[in-house]
């Protein structure tokens, strides 16, 4: 690392520490750079409350503010580019399984739903791309559109935040993107043979509750509470 990079790195850390002290919190989030899938494997052992990928100051501070405001038990903020390259949702769920002592079935449900919400936040939310492929050629075009957008810094640096709360017997999760709102989270298909649009169906089948949060670009899911029709059993 040369002197200029070292100064920038120190500047990032100092500002983050100041931000947290001013917010009345003692803990400092864990900042990370993603070089490969392997760097995710040991990352969550830091046991931080927040994990924030290094990036543009304005954008990671925006994430810091949101994470601080919502106070999840554990939260992650990553860029869209990293979201495309690495299976963050899967690694994050493994971490939740340890700290919340999830049953294998609960872990499976959460991992599945989080992956769907996460990809939705990336593709439809931050990148604003609809699923319009119906053959191998248009699937190629779909992924080319994704990669084309990710070559633009404005899209590549857009954040996705995943937050998890332990609430009594339930686990609550939220995925936030920085897209344009509702259409990104309501993508669904009624056509069983369509090659896309199943994400929402899967989430609504596995999660006990699903809803759009107070921020339009947020999807919440709850696991562990009895469903309404089970309450009287």
């Amino acid at each position, binding site marked *: 690392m040369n002197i200029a990079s070292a100064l920038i790195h120190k500047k990032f850390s100092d500002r983050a520490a100041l931000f947290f002290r001013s917010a009345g919190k003692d803990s400092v989030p864990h900042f990370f750079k993603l070089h490969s899938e392997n760097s995710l494997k040991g990352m969550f052992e830091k046991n931080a409350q927040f994990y924030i990928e290094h990036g543009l100051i304005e954008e990671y501070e925006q994430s810091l503010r949101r994470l601080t405001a919502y106070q999840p038990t554990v939260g992650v903020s990553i860029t869209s580019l990293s979201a*495309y*390259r690495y*299976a963050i949702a*899967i690694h994050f769920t493994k971490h939740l399984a340890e700290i919340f002592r999830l049953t294998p079935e609960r872990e*499976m449900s959460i*991992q*599945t739903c989080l*992956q*769907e919400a996460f*990809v939705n936040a990336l*593709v439809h939310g931050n990148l604003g791309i609809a*699923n319009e*492929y*119906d*053959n*191998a050629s248009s*699937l*190629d075009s779909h*992924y080319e559109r994704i990669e084309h957008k990710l070559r633009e810094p404005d899209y590549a640096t857009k954040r996705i935040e995943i937050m998890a709360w332990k609430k009594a017997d339930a686990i609550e999760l939220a995925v936030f993107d920085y897209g344009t709102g509702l259409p990104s989270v309501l993508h669904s298909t009624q056509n*069983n*043979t*369509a*090659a*896309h*649009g*199943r*994400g929402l*169906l*899967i989430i609504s*089948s*596995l999660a006990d509750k699903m809803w759009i949060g107070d921020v339009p670009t947020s999807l919440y899911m709850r696991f562990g509470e009895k469903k309404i029709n089970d309450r009287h059993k």
Partner: protein
Amino acid sequence: MDINMQRQNSHLTVHMSGQFTFNDNQSFKDVIAAATSDSVQNVTVDFAGVDFIDSAGLGMLLLLRDNCSHKNINVSLTNPKGQVEKIFSLSKFDQLFSIAG
């Protein structure tokens, strides 16, 4: 995801392992290409080694099915387990594919 393909006469068997997700479109293109190559009549996709699938993976399977049906190539799925079996069930994939094991 790792993919291993074996061809025996007109039958192509695709052994997959790991996680089959949104990130695997490039490698699955090779499966579609191999399945629709000359003189393949049956394709079996073996999920014994797959521990996770997302809706993008389901979509890729449906694209495989569609591409093969244009050439009257039969596609079947075998040995789904755990989360994969659950997602196939939720998505009513038994109505779209022959699923065994």
